[in-house]
């Protein structure tokens, strides 16, 4: 890459940035925290009234619902795999084209439309695209549903761009050690896994906890929807990396 261009860019950015000087800044003091909406008197009164109703009527129902949601079971939605979709595969912010054709997974990048990246699918019959998901690689992973189009633990695979080519994302941990496979883990940042019920989950780790054994993980699940994967927030889970293969809902003796 042209060093001259890089030098030119540095000089131009510096020149543009330095047009803003200390004397130009309007705000002079550290802003005060904005009052939170829920602390306003009227809102407090409404909250109190609503809380009374909840306590009197709905607590048993809520408790039952929480017990069910802690298990994070399947959403019940079976994906409808497609043969082509678009999305940002290489992480450059532009939409790339992904398709399955003649038993091959083909990716055409918006940044390089003349060169199609190809990967031969190991089981090429009756497969389809489920969507894209951040599985910790350089770009987004392409989730491919297996024969029968079922998004199940045994029927999925994930491909991603690597070293200029397209290839499968292998498990980052030994299959023997985990009950649920983990995909493309970035230590300290992101972990993705497939549950035994076939859901693709992703957990964002707090970088401040890097190196610790007990981790708090912000967990999302990917819900297939018409050729795309929609992220849904699950909540804050706990992960004892010494004893648990993947994050799980916190138990009573675990704290966030």
């Amino acid at each position, binding site marked *: 890459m*042209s060093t001259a261009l*890089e030098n030119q860019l*540095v*000089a131009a*950015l510096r020149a543009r940035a330095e047009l803003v000087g200390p004397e130009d800044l309007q705000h002079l003091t*550290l802003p005060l925290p904005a009052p939170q909406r829920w602390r306003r008197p009227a809102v407090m009164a409404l909250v109190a009234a609503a809380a009374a109703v909840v306590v009197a009527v709905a607590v048993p129902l809520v408790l039952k619902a929480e017990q069910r949601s802690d298990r994070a079971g399947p959403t019940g939605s079976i994906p409808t795999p497609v043969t082509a979709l678009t999305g940002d595969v290489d992480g450059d912010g532009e939409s790339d084209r992904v398709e399955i054709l003649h038993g091959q997974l083909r990716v055409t990048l918006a940044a390089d439309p003349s060169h199609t990246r190809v990967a031969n699918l190991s089981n090429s019959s009756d497969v389809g695209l489920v969507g894209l998901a951040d599985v910790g690689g350089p770009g987004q992973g392409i989730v491919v549903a297996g024969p029968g189009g079922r998004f199940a633990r045994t029927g999925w695979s994930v491909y991603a761009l690597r070293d200029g080519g397209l290839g499968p994302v292998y498990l980052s941990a030994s299959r023997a050690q985990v009950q649920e496979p983990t995909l493309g883990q970035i230590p300290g940042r992101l972990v993705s896994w497939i549950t035994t019920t076939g859901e693709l989950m992703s957990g964002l780790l707090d970088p*401040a906890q890097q190196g610790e054994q007990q981790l708090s993980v912000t967990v999302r699940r990917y819900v297939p929807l018409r050729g795309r994967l929609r992220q849904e927030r699950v909540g804050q889970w706990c992960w004892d990396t010494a004893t648990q293969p993947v994050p799980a809902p916190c138990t009573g003796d675990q704290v966030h």
Partner: protein
Amino acid sequence: MPVSMDRATARLDLAELYVVHRLSLVRLATLLVDDRATAEDVVQDVFAGLATRDGSLRDPDKALAYLRKAVVNRSRSALRRRRTARGYVPPRGVEAAGPDERAVLAEEHREILAALERLAPRQREVLLLRYWSGLSEAEIAAALGISRGSVKSTAGRALGRLEKIMESTQT
């Protein structure tokens, strides 16, 4: 009262962060949104958000990285709102700067800044953080919430495209 002492310390740190880093953050936001008033609002909102949390951060050593990330995110939101409000992608470029500012910039700077504006938002963010903020790949990855590999590939492609745009405008 250890808790209140911790909070007091955090507030002091926040004030210090404001004094030390506000200008560089406003400059970063200016490069992202190309409008000084919006940039200043973005940075003010970021500090207000942190102040709302009592200036508390899990790791105070990473406060600057947090602020940078927040500035990038809020700048992105500001650009999105601007596009939505106008109903089209405005021809931003350096023309968005005031006439006095335009006159000050050298022609060569204006050319490459205009080319920069034609890149995809993510590509522009990576180049700004790398060549103006001087961040490492890991720091850029943290600021943008993407992987290091993605930073590297995006930067490479962005420079390539920038070069092509520059060549096409010079011919």
